[in-house]
């Protein structure tokens, strides 16, 4: 103990750490009926950390070319000690991270935490969710299996619907006219370099905003008692993380992530191509739209509607002024429920095969 105290004193002398310690001791977290929702942001962060750790391990063996990608993942799954575990955890953790981020977003929306003065926290959070979806989309292709190949072909094809620059964007994204080894290489670059860099930066910002402003307390729960951040809240968060870890381990052990068949660009698309679950509501909606609506291509109209809808959701802090004043806003709640029910019902119905 003396050694630790000596070390602390030496560091404190050089870096003046006492104020930081005092801040940590004083920092507290509100305590109320709905404080369970505070754990989901942290849980999402935990899954992100798992992604970084397992992603780095996967990089040791993964080879990002059309010729070798599938075989390298197959090698990892069959030959590398615990390779199956690392890959399965990476895949499951990706899904749980997005699920946890969705829960976090809806709890923030329903509790009205996005309004002034926390607009930037909401916007960085929304950007982080989009980045997570980008991670999912780019990572899905990397094993270069049949389903991923054709799902990516369909997914990237959406970009071509963008007016004027669609075709150019498609070529940039795919690295050519079709999904090829060039697409795989750039998706790999995006997945392991571009997205992690931007995400890390935004996470730091997101956390800094929360740190600076403190955690939001929903109207109707004030005034509240608090509990110390350290150690009480940290230990509770650690418990949630451990449960998340247990869930990951169980999923990886009982449901190792499938690899499927190697992609064959010349083979016909297999039946039942679906994107990952978090894109299903958009995918099924676009499929339901008629080919032409008032002379405009149905898919373009659908994508435009998603863009406008997404933007409306993103700009919630600007149109919801009533909650910023501390008043109730039933309209905002209604919007939240409609969006939640729409996404949840379309996802579930898609899995039930209703849209076939």
């Amino acid at each position: 103990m003396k050694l630790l105290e000596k070390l602390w004193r030496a560091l404190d002398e050089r870096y003046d750490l006492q104020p930081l310690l005092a801040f940590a001791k004083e920092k507290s977290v509100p305590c109320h009926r709905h404080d369970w929702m505070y754990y989901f942001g942290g849980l999402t962060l935990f899954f992100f950390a798992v992604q970084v750790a397992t992603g780095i391990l996967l990089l040791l063996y993964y080879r990002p070319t059309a010729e070798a990608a599938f075989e390298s993942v197959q090698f990892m799954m069959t030959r590398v000690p615990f390779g199956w575990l690392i890959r399965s955890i990476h895949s499951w953790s990706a899904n749980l991270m997005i699920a946890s981020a969705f829960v976090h977003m809806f709890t923030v929306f329903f509790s009205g935490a996005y309004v002034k003065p926390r607009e930037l926290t909401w916007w960085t959070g929304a950007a982080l969710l989009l980045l997570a979806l980008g991670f999912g989309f780019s990572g899905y292709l990397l094993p270069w299996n049949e389903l991923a190949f054709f799902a990516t072909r369909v997914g990237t094809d959406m970009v071509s619907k963008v007016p004027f620059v669609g075709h150019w964007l498609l070529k940039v994204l795919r690295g050519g006219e079709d999904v090829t080894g060039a697409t795989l290489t750039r998706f790999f670059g995006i997945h392991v370099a571009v997205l992690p860099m931007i995400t890390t930066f935004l996470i730091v910002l997101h956390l800094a905003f929360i740190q600076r402003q403190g955690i939001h307390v929903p109207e109707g729960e004030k005034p509240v008692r608090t509990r110390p951040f350290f150690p009480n809240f940290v230990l509770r968060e650690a418990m949630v993380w451990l449960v998340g870890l247990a869930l990951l381990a169980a999923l990886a052990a009982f449901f190792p992530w499938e690899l499927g068949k190697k992609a064959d660009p010349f083979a016909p698309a297999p039946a039942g191509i679906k994107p990952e679950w978090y894109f299903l509501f958009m995918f099924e909606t676009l499929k339901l739209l008629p080919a032409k609506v008032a002379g405009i291509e149905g898919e373009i109209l659908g994508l435009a509607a998603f863009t406008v809808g997404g933007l409306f959701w993103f700009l919630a802090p600007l149109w919801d002024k009533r909650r910023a004043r501390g008043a109730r806003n039933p309209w905002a709640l209604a919007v939240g429920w409609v969006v939640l029910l729409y996404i949840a019902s379309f996802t579930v119905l898609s899995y039930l095969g209703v849209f076939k």
Partner: protein
Amino acid sequence: MKWMPAASLFLLALPALAAPPSPAVGPPGKPAQDTCTECHQALDDPRLQHPATLAADDIHHRQGITCAGCHGGDPTAEDPQQAMDPKKGFVGKIPAQRIPEVCGSCHSDASFMLRYAPNIPTDQLAQYRTSKHGLGLAKGDTRVATCASCHGAHGVLPASDARSPVYPTRIVETCERCHGNKALMANYRISGQEVADYKQSVHYNALTVKNDLSAPTCNDCHGSHGATPPGVASVSNVCGNCHLTQREAFDLSPHKDAFAALEQPACEACHGNHKVLPPQDSWIGVGEGQVCGSCHSASDQGAQVAAALFGALDGTVKRLEAAHARVEQLEARGMLMDEAAVQLEEAHQALVLARNEVHTANRARVEAQTSQAQQALAKAEGLAKAAEEELRFRHNGLKISLAVILVAVVALALKIREIESRSQ
């Protein structure tokens, strides 16, 4: 109209048909122009109108051959009396006896047929004359099939056209029109059951369900124009055209000479002729419903060999099925079993070869293949065992991890309780 005696008609028409003069035959590749189709299309009597409506699709008409090419007459004359003037060779409806000669007048003429295709066969008439149909016709039996019975009289399509009655997938129905008529077939001491039997065969299934046009239909074994049943000596040659390896194996077997001595048709003795069902390993033996019992008795050496062959195949099949189920189950549990699948496929291939060797009736040759299959199966089973152990290891590892996590969660909960009770 009055019919002229057949012989005189034939003599009238033949010179015109053997070297068809213009305008009965136009330049190849250019559809025929004649007044026959124009007038007949406008007639009310369907019997007379129908042939003309079929002309547009008819291969002859499309190649510039007018109605007069077969019926004689003047295809350029506007006046029906002149167009159908018997003096100009007009013959009206061609009697059945004459049809092969009429068709053969062009189709047997190599120099004439060369105008349409350089590799077209010209021996159909010669073959037909050797066929059961041709022999019957020569004896004056007009119920037998002639060219028009199978190819149609008007609207004749090339055999390669899927609508043609002689296209591979349609031949069965074409032959069935007569050969499915039991009353008609009784006249020839044919049961009339042949086509119905064939429709239950692996060959018909391959042809119609798998759409495999190389699968044999009636004419592949009986011949097209020289249609006749293959004799006892030639059955193995007929089947061996496609089943080459089976035929080679059979040639090595003691059955080859024995069957020849007994005048037994080789393949047919075990597999049947028209109703060729998917072969089963269970056919091998001398018991009831087993094929070896037709010649062998339970006490002879053949029965012992049959039992050994069946044992070798059956043991391999059962082991293969068990290994397959085991590997599938592991795949369903998320294990990658690609290498085991390769071994299973190798075992399956060896089993296919072993089944082929059954035709040699040579125990050593069959067992050489089944032992290859067993070796591949042993490898697959080894891989399955390793995968099962790996799964057990994973699940045990999970249990230990979950226990550790649970202990940590409980410890944290206790610690939190202690901290919070202290601070209150």
